[in-house]
């Protein structure tokens, strides 16, 4: 005798069915589920951020060892300052916190983009084409042509002439191969999710319900 599905499984199964009901048509059960999803997700944000970031990285260091961590009061206050945007008239003071927050992360992003994306990717595109064997043609040459034609396609600063237009056209073909491949992969990803859900419904809910192991 297999154990009957517990209440948690029932809740999850019913919510899954409610969400899938949208495929037949839009209906109140789906709307209920969608709103519940939004609410629970936001609540999840609150729970994880509070317990996993704010408590261990801010509150505990301040309360347990203030002398070593006194300066953490500043990011705490900057964080609260962000919420001043909701106070009419003095909302502008939140700009200090927002400015620091955005500029820091964009500064980090700058280093990542140049150091981790532009340089290695350009390095990979500049390959020796001295030997004309099949590997060079099908890998290195095709690759180099692809990268540079796509870059020319994306170069909007100057109006394209007859030559660059042709090269850009080749670029679009490479992009189409990539988008087609991405479509194939995306199908795979979305279907994987559905497999996960039906797997749950069938193996964890229906089978125990009808007594199949």
């Amino acid at each position, binding site marked *: 005798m297999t154990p009957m599905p517990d209440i948690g499984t029932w809740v999850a199964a019913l919510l899954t069915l409610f969400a899938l009901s949208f495929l037949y048509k839009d209906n109140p059960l789906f709307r209920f589920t969608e709103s519940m999803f939004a609410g629970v997700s936001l609540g999840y944000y609150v729970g994880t951020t509070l317990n996993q970031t704010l408590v261990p990285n801010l509150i505990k260091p301040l309360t347990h060892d203030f002398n070593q961590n006194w*300066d953490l009061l500043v990011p705490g206050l900057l964080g609260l300052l962000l919420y001043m945007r909701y106070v009419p008239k003095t909302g502008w003071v939140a700009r200090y916190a927002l400015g*620091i927050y955005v500029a820091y992360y964009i500064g980090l992003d700058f280093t990542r983009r140049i150091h981790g994306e532009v340089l290695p990717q350009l390095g990979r595109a500049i390959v020796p084409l001295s030997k004309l064997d099949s590997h060079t043609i099908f890998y290195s040459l095709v690759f180099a042509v692809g990268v540079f034609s796509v870059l020319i396609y994306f170069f909007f600063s100057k109006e394209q002439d007859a030559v660059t237009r042709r090269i850009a056209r080749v670029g679009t073909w490479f992009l189409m*191969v990539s988008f087609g491949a991405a479509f194939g992969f995306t199908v795979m990803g979305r279907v994987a999710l559905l497999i996960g859900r039906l797997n749950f419904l069938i193996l964890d809910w229906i089978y125990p319900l009808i007594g199949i192991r």
Partner: protein
Amino acid sequence: MNFEFGRVALVVLFALLPIVGIALGFFVPALRARGPLFVAFFAGIIPILSLYIPRQFLSGETGMRPRLDQWLIIVYGFALLLGIVNVIQNGTRKIARREKGWPYSAVLMTGLFITGGLGIWGAVSGQGITTLPDGSGTPFKWIADHFFLPLQATIFALLAFFMASAAFRAFRARNTEATILLAAGILVMAGRVPLLEFLAAPFPPLQPAAAGASQGLGKLTEWIMQTPNGAAQSGIIIGAALGAASMAIRVILGIERGYLGLGGGE
């Protein structure tokens, strides 16, 4: 008290300067825009300069950059929750005025307050939000496992159906580009799974041939992914990264100020 250089310098830049700026801002409205841009410049330039200047005061253990990283983990947490204020404002308004669809807002708020409330309880009680020492789950975890997980997974799983329908209705070989897209899509979809083996399954004599052909198709798919797709992705990455890097410079230098609600810059 620990008064290492990095901490003190950060406090001067990101606490004292803003305090002075805010105080002056009440009297000189022009400073309400310039002050934040001035302070933001330092926040943006520190992570960049620290790569160029490997000196103790900037990137050393007691320097500014590591401590700033630690600070901004905290600020990020606060920023992440910023949107929730908006949601609560909109939700309570909708419910109070009985606007169209208000019961759904009530459902949303219920989900938010129960889950968020259990999260807050986890923090206050010290229980946390994962498992208790005896291995059992917290109430927050129960909600996460039985509400949050199936809801998120199923809402995204709906896309599988819409992709299939789009494949049938919109994926057309209208011109050269669309035909290339379609061919690449079909090849990749066929090459990433044992499709030929599946089709040959009812015909045992064909199976070895199917397995061989499937290997070839798999190799072709890998070539498509690595070479033409890899090249296009490289081109996209280089283009997008240069765009993002120049945007970063505009933000740090205060040319782009739209994010502060100050108009889009020049």
